[in-house]
């Protein structure tokens, strides 16, 4: 409900896209690119974990997570993987081109609840962009949190996103970062293996840890097991789900997940509140 109020405050109608222009575009990895677009209105804000609906005129809309710095009011950042007709059309847009934006929509990562806790983020593949705003927030308010850990799994070394930023963050003594790839290369010096295998290599205090996960659901299932094995309780585990979101305001029902709509009640959910649906094969 909070998210919808936010949309209404920032847009004339949550169903009406604002026309914005692309300010910058960069390739991140094969098939993955980042668009920087102008905000739809002055004072436009979002909370880490939320998403926008991006509309390519004449093609269609896609739900894309916000992956920039929430404190940067001047630019909206989206990192997108080209996997279909809309994201393919987004990939073909260039600086200066126009697109439609609706949003921000959805729930956000529990940054207030995480204050005073260790924060362990586990990302897989294109699951890192929705967590990047969290990283910016945590680093900006570093003293409010305990240990900060990022465990990130990518397919190959070439698929690792935000390599330069990861290198910068690694320089900090107060931020543990571990990156692993499923398929290494002879020149890759980092770990090879599943992201869950990084757990023993990072230090956090389970009794005061909040776990944030984003990635393929099978990865998150195994990640949840690792957290639970270390006695991080279910009410302190949060995950971002992806479903077929079309209207983004709970009208169409395409993203229904049990009694929830992922577009409105999610995409970020507390694990204990969706556990019974998360483990249903057809949900």
């Amino acid at each position: 409900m909070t998210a919808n109020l936010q949309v209404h405050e920032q847009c004339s109608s949550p169903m009406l896209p604002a026309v914005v222009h692309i300010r910058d575009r960069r390739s991140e990895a094969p098939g993955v690119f980042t668009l920087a677009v102008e905000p739809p209105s002055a004072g436009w804000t979002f909370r880490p974990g939320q998403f926008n609906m991006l509309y390519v005129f004449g093609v269609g809309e896609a739900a894309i997570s916000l992956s920039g710095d929430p404190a940067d009011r001047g630019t909206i950042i989206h990192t997108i993987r080209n996997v279909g007709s809309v994201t393919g059309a987004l990939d073909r847009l260039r600086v200066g081109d126009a697109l439609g934006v609706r949003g921000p929509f959805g729930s956000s990562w529990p940054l207030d609840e995480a204050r005073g806790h260790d924060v362990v983020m586990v990302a897989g593949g294109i699951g890192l962009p929705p967590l990047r705003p969290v990283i910016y927030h945590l680093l900006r308010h570093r003293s409010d949190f305990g240990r900060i850990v990022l465990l990130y799994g990518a397919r190959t070394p070439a698929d690792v996103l935000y390599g330069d930023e990861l290198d910068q963050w690694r320089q900090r003594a107060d931020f543990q970062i571990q990156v692993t790839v499923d398929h290494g290369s002879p020149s890759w010096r980092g770990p090879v293996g599943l992201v869950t295998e990084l757990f023993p290599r990072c230090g956090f205090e389970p009794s005061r840890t909040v776990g944030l996960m984003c990635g393929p659901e099978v990865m998150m299932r195994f990640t949840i097991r690792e957290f639970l094995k270390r006695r991080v309780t279910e009410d302190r585990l949060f995950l971002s789900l992806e479903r077929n979101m079309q209207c983004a305001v709970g009208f169409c029902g395409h993203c229904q997940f049990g009694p929830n709509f992922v577009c409105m009640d999610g995409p970020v959910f507390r694990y204990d509140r969706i556990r019974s649906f998360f483990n249903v094969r057809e949900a």
Partner: protein
Amino acid sequence: MTDLALLGAFASHAFLEALSEQHRMRLASGVNPFRAAPGEYLAREGEPAQAFYLIQSGHVGIGTHLGKGGTAPIQTLGPGDVVGWSWLLPPYQWQFDARAIDSVQGLVFDAAWLRDQCEQDHELGYHLLKQLLTVVSGRLAACRIQQLDIYK
């Protein structure tokens, strides 16, 4: 870390934590510290598997060679991990390469001695095998997920 410190940390290695004090004492009588420099092989595919390593610091890459294509890295092991179970099963030959990525320190058992201990004390052998099976099971599960290529 000195040899004494390495041996002192013996009981706290994750692999041995589940063993009884009695079994740990027995194993302690045959353990030695080891160090490997970056690039040094702990195991080479096809060669006799004469050792069982417990890593205490540093990282070890498991891989297989691709002929002219170099070595394909398969998995990275770190502190708390063990290297190898080929020493336990005939024909006692390493199935994969294990190579130090950075400076590695840990503990090593002579494989023949360890097999002998397991034969003499089946309870020790059972618990050691159960621990190894936990490791194998975890690595198999990880490999299965990796095989799914979930980030594709």
